[in-house]
């Protein structure tokens, strides 16, 4: 337990010291928040954004964006780099278990996701006056489900991608595809069928739908059972694959 606490604290400091992951996880969602808020404001239009104001749509989406950046950019890069450079080997030789190593990453992911989402919340509320979340307990549930999903997905990528270069390349492609088509970019209603289909097969789509339905008011936005079940499914499958393919060296 003491080892897990120590490793988690060190890993949080290492996360903050790594400019690339800070840009993707903490800075980019805020930049998008200001750009999209500046362009679209928060006036509802029945044609797009599920019929709600753009900012009401994007606030929970950017929570998902933070989590997704952790799962596609931060974790795969971190784990593949640790393995490639012999850091995992060093940790293992000193009796750090797989549960300590991955457990610390899960905790760091949750803490960074909370930090990033708080930033989005404070800056969003201060500038474009979106509505406050409708159902806080549901939102907290959806939040941790999303964190679990993308941490698990990141473990999977970190386990199967053989090198830092591969993690960087594949991770960035997944990041941009998911961001643009998965629900944190242009409204899904304006996309072509192919774009919509690709968006529908990204984990981000279901994480965002679950978050949005917890946030948005009204009978149209109850807890999104099917989206949340798909999210659980992605979490479980990713975790199993990660466990199967994880290598110390």
């Amino acid at each position, binding site marked *: 337990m003491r080892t897990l606490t120590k490793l988690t604290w060190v890993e949080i400091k290492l996360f903050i010291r790594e400019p690339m992951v800070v840009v993707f996880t903490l800075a980019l969602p805020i930049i998008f928040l200001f750009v999209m808020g500046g362009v679209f404001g928060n006036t509802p239009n029945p044609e797009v954004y599920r019929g709600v104001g753009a900012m009401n749509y994007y606030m929970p989406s950017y929570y998902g964006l933070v989590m997704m950046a952790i799962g596609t950019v931060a974790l795969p890069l971190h784990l593949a780099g640790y393995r490639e450079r012999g850091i995992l080997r060093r940790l293992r*030789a000193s009796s750090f278990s797989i549960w300590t190593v991955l457990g610390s990453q899960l905790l760091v992911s949750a803490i960074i996701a909370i930090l990033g989402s708080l930033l989005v919340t404070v800056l969003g509320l201060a500038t474009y006056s979106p509505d406050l979340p409708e159902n806080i307990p549901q939102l907290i549930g959806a939040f941790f489900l999303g964190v679990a999903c993308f941490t698990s997905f990141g473990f999977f990528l970190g386990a199967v991608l053989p090198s830092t270069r591969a993690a960087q390349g594949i991770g960035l492609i997944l990041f941009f595809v998911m961001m643009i088509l998965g629900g944190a970019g242009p409204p899904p209603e304006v996309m072509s069928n192919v774009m919509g289909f690709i968006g529908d097969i990204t984990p981000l789509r279901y994480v965002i739908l679950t978050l949005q339905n917890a946030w948005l008011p009204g009978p149209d936005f109850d807890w999104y059972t099917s989206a949340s079940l798909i999210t659980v499914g992605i979490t479980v499958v990713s975790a199993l694959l990660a466990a199967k393919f994880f290598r110390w060296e």
Partner: protein
Amino acid sequence: MTSIISVQNLRKTYGKTVAVADISFEVAQGEIFGFLGPNGAGKTTTVECLQALRDPDSGKISVIGLDPLRQAQELRRRIGSQLQESALPDRIKVWEALDLFASVTDKISDWHPLLEQWGLAEKRKSSFAALSGGQKQRLFIALSLVNNPEVVFLDEMTTGLDPAARRVAWDLIRAVRDSGTTVVLVTHFMDEAENLCDRVAIVDKGKIVASDSPQGLIASYATGVRVLFSTDKPDLAFLEKVSGVKNVTRRGDRVEVEGSGPLLALVAAALVEHGIVPPDLRVEQPSLEDVFLKVTGRAVVD
């Protein structure tokens, strides 16, 4: 002797390459035991099996009474490891690494003295990436000791250290041994094995070809002594009759007398008797290097 490590018929292959053919040995509690051999001899594979970092194909291993196959985690917690190939995150600071690795043990472990001993005090707030090769190496040795291990494995620990730092490292490792920790050392440096180890196993092609104290090895395998001096006197035939002398060779003024026993004293006496008083008279004792040449048939190649 109480064995803290016992290995019987260890074997490890990678595909068709036999890394360790058949190795058996015992290490006594509180000694510095060295594996000496050329690269690729199987030294590292052997100690990695002992540290539960590799699974052997066959053989029995017991380290501090634990089986590396079944009790890997407890074993790793109680031993120290300095690995040949490993790294730390670039941006971790020296003190953070020591503090982190100290947390694996329940024993009281204060890492601050290690900072001083291994010359890292001024670098405590530097990040790993900013350290020189020698500083990184010293940090890895310090990390291997930070959990107060019962046995510490050091794989090529002085690689990257300058000559002065090597001597300091040897003294510190002797102090570690004197405090009760058993040390298992892997090296391809003859002087390191000879100076530091209580016992040495010479490994070649996956097997131990000789094993004893450095002095014992020299006594059994390399008995010859060489006496060297310079003189311009042409007639040295009298030296052939000196007791113990086997061979006298001459290149210009340089003379080399090979033999055994108290050769220096006898040769010196004979020279003085014949009015030759060379200012550079000296003796070369056989070293582990001569043993190594004899048992493996070749010199260590880096």
